[in-house]
């Protein structure tokens, strides 16, 4: 790279340092200090209180609810994501542009509106939700509703991770496999999936991080029942509002650690995909 080919002029160096300083100070006060402070608050008395706070009955239950909801959401979004990506890249059909646009729609919708939307369709007082309830299926204020909400907010992540790689890959290998007598399923399993593996993993981690951390939409549809439908993010808010700061901080730090780990895994997968 011929980056440093010309000797930098002095005023150029000054402006370079000035820009660097502004960026660093901005990021320090907006991002680094707040996150570091919460970690320090959590760990200042050692690891003991952190683990104690996370192993109370309510906290463990919140972990459990969070993981159940996230796993369902990720599973559904993965199946949908692969299917939709293949449709968008490999097939022609009328309305393709609309499908493409609708997949991105969830990113522009407020989480609270997502919750409201689901309540209006699946809530007890709607005709469809009422009918489901009469048949013993409760969606809102229960796990299925939380799964729906989480699927909604993380819907585009797997699709958008897989589509560019699938485009890049082309379908020559798939066609070759089919010419050699492979069936659709075999081609998919032996050719398509290995080709998109890294991108798919990247999309799944992204989706998992979003699912574990969803707050607004889940807050609306879960009814926030402590010990029943309380996820980790709801637990953080509830404990904080009840002035149980150590519990809130411990759970927040746990969530932050999950976020940081997902971030590192994503970077690793991105580098591998490149």
């Amino acid at each position, binding site marked *: 790279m011929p980056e440093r080919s010309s000797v930098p002029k002095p005023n150029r160096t000054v402006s370079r340092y000035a820009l660097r300083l502004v960026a660093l100070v901005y*990021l320090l006060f907006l991002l680094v200090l707040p*996150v570091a402070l919460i970690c320090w608050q959590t760990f200042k008395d050692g690891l003991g209180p952190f683990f104690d706070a996370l192993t109370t009955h309510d906290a463990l239950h919140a972990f459990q609810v969070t993981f159940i909801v996230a796993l369902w959401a990720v599973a559904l979004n993965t199946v949908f994501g692969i299917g939709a990506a293949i449709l968008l890249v490999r*097939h*022609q059909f009328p309305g393709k542009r609309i499908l493409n646009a609708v*997949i991105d729609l969830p990113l522009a919708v407020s989480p609270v509106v997502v919750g409201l939307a689901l309540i209006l369709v*699946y809530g007890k007082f709607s005709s469809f939700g009422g009918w489901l309830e009469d048949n013993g299926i409760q969606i809102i204020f229960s796990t299925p509703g939380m799964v729906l909400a989480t699927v909604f907010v993380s819907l585009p992540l797997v699709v958008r991770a897989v589509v560019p790689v699938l485009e890049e890959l082309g379908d020559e290998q798939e066609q070759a496999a089919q010419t050699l007598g492979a069936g659709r399923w075999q081609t998919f399993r032996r050719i398509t999936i290995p080709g998109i593996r890294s991108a798919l993993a990247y999309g799944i981690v992204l989706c998992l991080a979003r699912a574990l951390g969803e707050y607004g939409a889940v807050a609306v549809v879960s009814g926030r029942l402590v010990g029943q439908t309380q996820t980790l993010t709801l637990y953080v808010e509830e404990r904080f509002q009840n002035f149980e700061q150590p519990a809130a901080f411990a759970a927040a730090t746990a969530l932050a650690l999950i976020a940081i780990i997902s971030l590192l895994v994503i970077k690793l997968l991105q580098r591998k995909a490149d």
Partner: protein
Amino acid sequence: MTSDILETDSAGSGTPPGPARPVARRRSPSAPTALGLGSAVIFLSLIVLIPLAAVIWKSAGEGPGFFWKSVTTPDAWAALKLTIVVSIIVALINLVMGTLIAWVLVRDSFPGKAVLDTLIDLPFALPTIVAGLVLLELYGTDSPLGVNLAYTRVGVAAALLFVTLPFVVRTVQPVLLELDREMEQAAASLGAGNATIFRRIILPNLLPAMVSGTALAFTRSIAEFGSTVLISGNLPFKTQVAAVQIFGQIENDNTASAAAVSTVLLVVAFVVLVTLDLVQRWRSRRA
């Protein structure tokens, strides 16, 4: 420079839409395609389309008078106004700071840059409620820095700045990486100063990415809920943003009013995104 062009060229023909597409287009959608498409449409309808349609239906269901009344109740109107104004300010700060950060990440080099580059995505990965909590700890009533932004509009803006940080950085960064340095060197050799080079060479190239990143930050801001819940203190007329106001209405079983305010948010986001799409399409057709 020439190698760059060759590379993009070969990459363009490396993804062969040519031989791939006609095979699929030979027949109208085959049975498996139709089955897959059907499943995808049902999935999207059950989770996204029907529920969103229900929000709009609900807000319109009791007539335009009711819609107008719900949106213009003093607290709803104040919340909407605050949301839009703060989001515009936040988007503009992002426009400047996001571009600056992208510039530093691409053109500067210093120890720890890679870590910083990874950190930029943290707001996307961090749960919004945690974002609100960490900001409230540093800038709350017992702030170790002595800066108390709790329950103020500045606090709301800070929360929104936190969650929208990656948008402009991540849209501008790749464009800046691709930008041909030789254009700048040519301009410099012809006697152009830093400011002229920036204004005449760099800015026009970055502008589309800057605008789309800013628009995305804006739509995210008007929709934001989790990060503002704690730091805003939820004071009507002062710090209550639209999403929090909607949440309160839902809690009070006032779903029709909640749907009306939600519809306004949906329409604003829709208009911004469609405009952005049209502008991008118009630009790419001219290019």
